[in-house]
């Protein structure tokens, strides 16, 4: 029966198999028992096919603590280069930081992220960017569950038809709200830290019962009659 053969999996590199292996283990149900990987990527632009990642920054959040030395900051070698956005991010093509190839960067990130929940501000963009990079290197999509602080934040605001709620809130707005210093805005790791602190503050406000509840809180509330 040729169509049952797991032909494709054999072609994947070792590190990808290690990564997928992690998902056989279930995530703890309690929120506190989980490790959250808060990430942010700096990219050359917003186009998923044309633009590339410049840097991935990520930190681990375990039991409401962040260990600085366990954070991840990988700079990626560039082929595609757009001078306009490099100005924002301050990452120049030939900067002094140690740079890795895209594949090496992905490998490091997967080893770091494991099966943990990924948290980010408007996280779907970062995930899409990483997925695009994975695809370029002949790999499937990320398997991690994700949480978006942009969506979660909206749930902390009161629901009433009289209040004009914005469609989305920027990371700057969150930082202002929670009085987080914006000094490192537009560096991947700096944004990841701002997101992490905002996430902690939001989590305290929402008081989720368990992990499942926290995921559900990303959706607008349902009213039962």
């Amino acid at each position: 029966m040729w169509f049952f053969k797991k032909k494709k999996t054999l072609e994947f590199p070792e590190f990808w198999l290690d990564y997928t292996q992690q998902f056989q283990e279930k995530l703890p149900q309690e929120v506190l028992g989980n490790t959250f990987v808060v990430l942010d990527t700096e990219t050359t632009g917003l186009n998923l096919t044309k633009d590339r990642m410049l840097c991935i920054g990520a930190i681990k959040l375990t039991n409401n603590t962040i260990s600085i030395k366990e954070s991840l900051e990988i700079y990626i070698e560039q082929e595609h280069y757009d001078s306009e956005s490099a100005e924002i991010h301050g990452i120049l093509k030939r900067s002094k930081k140690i740079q890795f190839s895209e594949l090496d960067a992905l490998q490091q990130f997967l080893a770091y992220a494991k099966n943990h929940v990924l948290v980010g501000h408007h996280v779907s963009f970062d995930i899409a960017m990483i997925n695009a990079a994975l695809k370029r290197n002949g790999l499937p999509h990320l398997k991690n569950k994700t949480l978006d602080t942009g969506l979660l934040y909206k749930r902390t605001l009161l629901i009433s038809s009289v209040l004009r709620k914005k469609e989305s809130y920027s990371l700057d707005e969150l930082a202002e709200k929670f009085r987080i210093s914006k000094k490192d805005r537009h560096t991947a790791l700096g944004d990841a830290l701002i997101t992490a602190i905002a996430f902690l503050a939001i989590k305290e406000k929402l008081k989720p019962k368990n992990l499942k509840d926290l995921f559900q809180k990303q959706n607008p509330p349902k009213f039962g009659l």
Partner: protein
Amino acid sequence: MKNTISERVADFLKKYPPFNILAEHQLQKLAYEVTIIHKENNSIVFAEKEAPHNYFYVVHKGAIALTKKGSQHILDICDEGDIFGLRPLMAHEKYKLQATAQEETILYAIPIEEFKPIALENHQVGDFLIESFASNTRNPYSIKHRGKLYGVSNDGEGTAENKLLDLQPVRYSTNLVTCTEETQIKVLANAMSLNSVGCILVTKNELPIGIITDKDLRNKVATGMVPITKNAKAIMSTPVITYSKELTITQAQMALMKSRISHLCLTEDGTTDTPAVGILSKHDVMVALGNNPSVLMRAIKRATDSKRLRTIRHSIINLLQGYLEQNIPMGLVSKIISELNDATIKQVIQVCIDQMETPPPVKFTWLAMGSQGRGEQLLTTDQDNAILYEDVPEDKKEETQSYFLALGNRISVELNHIGFEYCPAEMMASNPLWCHSLQEWKEVTSHWMGNPGPDEVLLSSIFFDFNVTYGEKALADELSLHIFENAKKYPQFLTHLASGALQNPSPSGFFRDFLVEQDGAHKDFFDLKLRALMPIIDAARVLILSHSIKSINNTAERYEKLAELEPKNQELYTACSFASKALLKFRTKQGLLHNDSGRFIALDQLNKEEKIKLKRTFKTIKEIQELIQVRFQVKNLLR
């Protein structure tokens, strides 16, 4: 090793001793090892007698209270940049105090293993630590071990009950106002007024030789004894009584009492042969004692930044706790505390206006709404506020609104820093919906009253308790007048407002049991605000509005006024007034107990007497609701 975050941590630590002494590479290395910890409100960092952690802590944001077990008294509050939990690590002993997060807090945990070599190697760091341990700035228990930093244990020290004033150093003003012997009286008096100080130091070659106080000006100049054209030498008191700058509060108190003067001059070594470093007034000592509202009031008025106001707020909470413990009448307590809150907000607004690039283009008022407007905000709850400004010509409209929005935004951020939470519904002056000119506000309120849907009723019930905190009262009066006229024009509005007051769920069930929350974060708690306070507050509002009485916002006072206006219902109204005070007290006590807004009550923690008291108010609530139902014919509306 370093990364973006560790650089940021190093930048933060660099601002505070002893980290400011460290070499750049040492600091970078240390910062890389730091763990960032987020602590929820009321969570414990370490408990008394707990074995020491591998870390000591620096407060990055928020506040940590240090307490002794079995005592409600807070021994110390650690604020931004303060170090705590270091001594036990250095001395290899258990924690002597409990550290609890007073609010949401972010801590930097620094591993002792990395820090100790630096402290031992760098003399200045070691000296700083010895000094701070000994001079009790962060740990009042170690005075006896001056100079013995490492490996000394001190069990069974100290009494926790007094606030250890005899050990705390005084806070004095370092902003010295000085003049010379030759300075004219008029000139020096001007300098005193300009700096708003009550005394000026006369110096010669930087050494203090005399002092002139308000009293000298009154007794010697205003009486005509010395003409105003003379110079400082003629009226100064000399020699100056000087003390060393390392004075403790108790010592300062003694000194002021002994020499019967109101100001002490502090010099480098305590003699008149060294330059003066500061002036300590009676007032400074009183602030340190912190148990007197009028002193706190003056401290608020002198504060120039939110950081200072924040510490004053902690004293206000302490004062409130003391009042409740002593069972001082609630009416009085709420009045004092509201006044203090009010003054704090006023000061914040003043500071923010000064910080704006240009003064306000037109006159405006800052309105407090909700509980604060009613003078019922004892604990810090959410900030509900609005801005009302004078009408401007069409072409200036946009510019004016953007100015006041920017101002509102700045004020609300500063208020948040002091401890007033943001309003989750964004009912704040930083929101364009709550920042209008007089004409616009008139239109908005007319709209609410003319089209009273549930949302409009909700908004008006929040807004109509507005109270002027700052600025032009006349603007607010005009708006009130407009609202009363409209209330007569749209009689159905009152009916809707009354029905809004009846909408809250009843506090007790069929068997006269408490109704508790069915689900959510507060499952099995009793929602005091929604089920008891709101109905009684809403009822007072609609009744007072129907009588067109303005500028009485406090619920208890409203009922007292109503009792006066309607003698036939006097008994019920008086009962309501009592009930509202009792409920407010309940809320405040619960709030202090759990360090939150006190909205939700755990019923199993109430004793029998408290439960009976609470239930008694329910009967009153039921009666007042019936009265409203009949008077405003709400039934017609419901069916």
